[in-house]
């Protein structure tokens, strides 16, 4: 029973120089928790607020947002010039920046930024013909922002179609349609997938006939 007035004393030590907390206990959960704690401590030390306490989530420090925006713009510029590999690189850098935001900053912002960057990187991957990477990136984009992100839904669907995973593509696009409420591009893609599935079936049947006959 966990009582509110008692606690379990854990065998903890603190390094006088680095201020890192460590333990002599072999428990793995305690060890991982302490690494999280030390990481958070280091992050808190970089803060400039009084008392080094994390500020409330809003308002956001605009510096990082501006940097991420810049990286996305240079990625877009490279994409327009047709240098897709460079575009992928820029989007990747932007993503790194968006995902290494301090954890106490608003997650909604992280979601928006990473969704846009993942979707754009998926597009650049598609332009390079690397459908596998494109599919994964588009899925990540959808994970970050489920509603109002029809492009990412469409891109993963398209990648799956290109890899010949028609059943999976159909399921994905149908789910996307549910979320996006009948987006025109998604509907077109769904029709395309259905047509391909139909064709595949016909081909298999004709092959069977050819074998038996």
């Amino acid at each position, binding site marked *: *029973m*966990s009582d*509110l007035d008692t*606690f*379990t*004393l*854990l065998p*903890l*030590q*603190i390094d*006088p120089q680095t*201020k890192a*907390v460590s333990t002599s206990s072999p428990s793995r*959960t*305690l060890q991982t*928790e302490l690494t*999280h*704690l*030390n990481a*958070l*401590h280091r992050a*808190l030390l970089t803060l400039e607020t*009084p*008392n*080094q*306490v*994390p*500020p409330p*989530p809003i308002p956001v420090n605009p510096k990082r947002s501006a940097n991420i925006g810049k990286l996305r713009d240079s990625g877009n510029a490279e*994409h327009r010039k*047709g240098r897709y590999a460079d575009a992928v690189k820029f989007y990747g850098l932007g993503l790194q920046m968006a*995902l290494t*935001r301090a*954890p*106490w900053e608003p*997650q909604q912002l*992280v*979601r928006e930024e990473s969704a*846009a960057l993942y979707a*754009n990187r998926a*597009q650049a991957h598609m*332009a*390079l*013909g*690397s459908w*596998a*990477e494109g599919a*994964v990136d588009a899925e*990540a984009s959808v*994970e*970050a922002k489920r509603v109002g992100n029809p*492009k990412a839904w469409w891109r993963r669907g*398209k990648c799956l179609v290109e*890899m*010949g995973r028609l059943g999976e593509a159909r399921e994905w696009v149908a789910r996307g349609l549910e979320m996006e409420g009948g987006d025109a591009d998604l509907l077109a893609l769904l029709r395309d997938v259905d047509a*391909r599935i139909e*064709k*595949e079936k016909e081909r298999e049947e*004709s092959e069977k006939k*050819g074998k038996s006959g």
Partner: protein
Amino acid sequence: MFDIDWMSLALPFAYISVLGGSLFTFSTIYRKRKATQSANLEPWFPPHLQRNIYLSLLHLEPEAGQEKAPKVPDSVIRAALLRRAVEDIRRIIQIRTSKAALNTLLQRGSVGDDLNQRFLRAEKEIEEELRDVVSEANALAPGWGQVIFQSANEIAANTALRSRLEEIEAKTESEKQWWEKRRETIQKDFMKELDEDATKDSTKGASDDDGVLVDATTPASTPGKKKKGGKK
């Protein structure tokens, strides 16, 4: 005149006292058992590790051979308190989401009263815990109590999002390998079919087959044939 015959009344009195005594013992034993049972109910949540770390840091024992306990800097204490708040947020979310479901189950009689007892206790405990964290935060930095849970909420949500994204990104390598293999087999099949067509020199069904296969291999040969415009 009223000469009471105590001797003959001894039996009824003995009967009454035995009855009363046995009822009393039964009720005390029963109540005691029930109390220990509810005290021994399994807690809803596992031990609060972050809380234990925070309190252990406050009560750090001196190391062997030293008299004074090492001084823990305030920044470490603050970090530990923030971790504790994050864990509290996770617990609150769990409590809130399971409350409605538990109530329905309870009304239908699908779960026992024990579970409800455990749940109510966990709810009360988490309320106390929140109050405790707020007062600790205010003691560490004036005014922090008002915002610590906002920060903790974002930290909890951000960690969840990041672990999901990492999970998805981790699939990239295996997906890539799968597609490489798949593409090779498609290409091989295509070449074989071309050879067969050439030897058979037949027209039956060939055009249809080719149509599908060319579609599947075009991505490799013509990158960037289709682009969807408009970037954010």
